[in-house]
């Protein structure tokens, strides 16, 4: 071997050390970069040279820059981040809902309702005096505005969820597009080389982590390094293409998610998006519906009793609150509800119904609250009234007539808070008396109303205050359960992250040690060249 061979060995040592220093420097620089995986320059021995004395090494090369990365762990982190995102959203939304019913800090419905009942008792104590009656009307107005305020807050929660859903869809689309682009770049860089496009992969991993915050998905990598991302039965990213999700406004004003014109909501099981969808549904189906039912029941029972009484002028049969009104929704292309009315408030159950068509001429009526059949089967005639439980609805052809599978939703409670208002306009019209001859001192109807307010109500299976208390318990439980599960998911994720960090995280101490190690190796390599130079000098001076 020629003496210049030592030059080569020295040069290889300097080059390898420099590469290693580069990698270390990059690790240090990225110590706080989320998703960054620690890299390591892997030193390798080049093919040794045969000499008379045997094989002698020819220095060192950096064969590859290894990325410290555990694929399985990475996937677990992704799934866990999806779970956490869902739990966090549910926790946040239910916390907001709980605040709407938080009587602990800001007395709300309970205060207004009890002030209203007290006002009735004051009227009962002084049925002939107008001031007490005026106070009663004020208290009733207070109750109305409290109920409206609470409904507004709940509806805002739903609306807020909708805005966030739309926002998330935009973000998801941006991310899937970027992943598709990165797929292409990674394939190009890695094609035909043994090098990993590690920083590009880190970048893609990072995008996938962001995506898991939004939506639950499954992913796998093909043999040229491209990931495929699947949600439910839909592919969001495949090879170098991405497929957008879109937001569509529903018949009831809420936002639905579609992929290629297909409703997509039910495929989303993890991630913030699933949390938003689930919380929206929970809020609409539980506390909002319960509150509306409570108000509907107050309106119904108050009016039924108030109608029996007589006001100061001897008039009877008046409602105290504006009467309940039916709300209907048509799920039909060929027929619609043309008129609807509550014929007998006393028979009203405050349940919600559906008229369902099994074929174009046969319908049934189902109580969807209790899931019982009200009318098993009846022949449909366009325009003829359908009556049940104090409700009368007219369905008439509106085009081709109803088809099998068409349904009409009927609810006496949906708009109860919307329409919650006073029917009596003057203090004299409060029907405190139970006698048709004008007896100003007669308070028997007021006393009867107090019994209604403080006793059990059949429709609710509870007193008004008792029912409200169950709503509070419900929202409290919803909130605490969601909070607990968010805490649990968070600790699971922390655990996984720690394990991931153990593999992929940068430790500055370690890197500092490496810096010195490679610096010393660099210095030694330089020294090698210097010594070789001196050796050459000696020979040249011979």
């Amino acid at each position, binding site marked *: 071997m020629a003496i210049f061979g030592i030059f080569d060995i020295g040069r290889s040592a300097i080059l390898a050390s420099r590469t290693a220093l580069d990698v270390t420097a990059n690790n240090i620089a990225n110590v706080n970069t989320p998703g960054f995986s620690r890299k390591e320059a892997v030193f390798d021995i080049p093919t040794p040279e045969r000499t008379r004395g045997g094989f002698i090494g020819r220095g060192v090369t950096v064969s590859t820059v290894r990325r410290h990365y555990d694929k399985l762990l990475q996937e677990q982190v992704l799934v866990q981040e999806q779970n956490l995102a869902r739990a966090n959203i549910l926790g946040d939304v239910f916390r907001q809902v709980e605040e709407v019913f938080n009587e602990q800090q800001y007395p709300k419905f309970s205060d207004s309702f009890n002030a209203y009942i007290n006002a009735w008792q004051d009227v009962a104590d002084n049925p002939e*005096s107008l001031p007490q009656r005026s106070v009663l009307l004020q208290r009733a107005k207070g109750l109305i505005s409290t109920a409206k305020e609470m409904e507004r807050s709940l509806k805002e929660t739903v609306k807020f969820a909708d805005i966030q859903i739309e926002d998330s869809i935009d973000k998801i689309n941006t991310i899937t597009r970027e992943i598709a682009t990165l797929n292409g770049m990674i394939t190009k860089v890695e094609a035909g080389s043994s090098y990993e496009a590690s920083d590009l992969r880190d970048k893609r991993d990072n995008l996938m982590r962001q995506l898991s915050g939004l939506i639950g998905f499954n992913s796998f990598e093909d043999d040229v390094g491209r990931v495929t991302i699947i949600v439910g039965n839909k592919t969001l990213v495949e090879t170098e293409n991405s497929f957008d999700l879109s937001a569509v406004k529903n018949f009831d004003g809420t936002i639905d998610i579609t992929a290629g014109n297909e409703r997509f909501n039910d495929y989303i099981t993890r991630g913030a998006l699933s949390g938003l969808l689930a919380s929206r549904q929970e809020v609409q189906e539980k506390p909002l519906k319960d509150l509306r039912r409570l108000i509907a029941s107050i309106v119904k029972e108050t009016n039924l009793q108030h109608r029996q009484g007589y006001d100061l002028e001897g008039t009877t049969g008046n409602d105290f609150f504006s009467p309940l009104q039916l709300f209907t929704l048509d799920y039909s292309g060929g027929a619609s509800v043309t008129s609807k009315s509550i014929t007998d408030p006393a028979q009203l159950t405050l349940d919600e119904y559906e008229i369902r068509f099994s074929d174009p001429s046969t319908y049934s009526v189902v109580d969807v609250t209790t899931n019982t059949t009200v009318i098993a089967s009846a022949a449909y005639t366009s325009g003829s009234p359908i009556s049940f439980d104090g409700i009368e609805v007219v369905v008439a052809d509106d085009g081709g007539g109803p088809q099998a599978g068409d349904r009409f939703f009927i609810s006496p409670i949906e708009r109860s808070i919307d329409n919650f208002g006073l029917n009596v306009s003057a203090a004299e019209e409060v029907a405190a008396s139970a006698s048709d001859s004008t007896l100003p001192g007669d308070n028997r109807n007021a006393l009867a109303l107090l019994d209604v307010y403080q006793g059990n109500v059949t429709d609710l299976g509870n007193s008004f*205050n008792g029912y409200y208390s169950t709503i509070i*318990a419900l929202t409290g439980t919803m909130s605490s359960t969601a909070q607990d599960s968010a805490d649990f998911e968070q600790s699971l994720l922390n655990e996984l992250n720690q394990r991931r960090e153990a593999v992929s995280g940068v430790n500055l101490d370690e890197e500092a040690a490496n810096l010195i190690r490679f610096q010393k190796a660099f210095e030694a390599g330089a020294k090698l060249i210097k010594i070789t130079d001196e050796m050459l000098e000696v020979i040249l001076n011979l």
Partner: protein
Amino acid sequence: MRISSFTIYDRLTRALQENLRRQYEAHESLATGKKINRPSQDVAGASRVLDYRVSINENRQNIRSIDDATSYLEITEGILGDAGETLTRLKELSLTALNGSTNKEGRAAIAKEVKELKGQLLSLGNSSFQGKYIFSGLLTDRQAFDPVTYDYQGDENHMEVKVGPDTRVEKNLTGNETFAYVQPSHEVVAIDDGARYIHYIPGQAIDATYPSSRVVVAIASTDDPSAVEADLQAGPPYTTVEDTFYFDNMIQMTDELQQALENDDTTRVRALLVPIDDSGAQLTDARAELGARVNFIETERGRLDNAVLSLKTLLSETEDADLAEVISEVSKNEVALQSLRSTGAKILNQSLLDFLR
């Protein structure tokens, strides 16, 4: 396990977060004085708190109603007391008028005082409280007694007051229950050593359409009730009845007394002595009834006061924070937080790089 720089930092921030969160909750408890600040902190407790509040509110409202009713009943009782004194004076005056030493002029003078007393009874009967006439039944917007005819113009209904979950108390007495009495049966009293008889007849025995409190007084030559009743039913001219008059209440009775004195009709004055006594007895009964009611609702009020007190204790036990406990929690957290901060600062500050020169 390999520890990365991020792990150390992450651990520390999470520990800080956890401590700060506990500290925040403790501070919230201190600020509000409550341990339940939202239902999720104690679902069952929050429910109970609401139930307690509803019960406290109901009890307080019932106490309000009781106080209202109590003052009403006490005012009524005072009026009946005044009416009782008036009747006593009427009795004295009647006896003075019948006294042999009192002559026609004397009786005319007494008639004047009786007139005053009649006015007094009328105004007592037409007393009002908080703008409503006390003795008119439920027709509280009109005077109980007509100021000219002295006829009762209220009704017989009672106003009930809610004083407990299932307890109601009547708060008014009607004019007929206080200022009138029902003659239970036909009574005969002999006067002038048995030469004449005074008949006190329930009005409805003569004519079913008469008010139930009408007392018909007849001075007759016979003591046979049925003969007198038949005579009165047939109308004048009478065969046995010498003189007859009637009254529906004690104001009309006083009016009759005044007229008898003015007319110097001692027989009528004599005949009115029994009704004056009966009226007095009626008032005494009515006062006893009122006293019983006041007693009852005062007991009820005491019960409600106790209930409110014990409910408040329960409420406080359920929702109020134990301040001593919270404060010790705060200082415990403080210590943990401080040590965490100082060790954290040390750990974060140091790295191998610091030792490389």
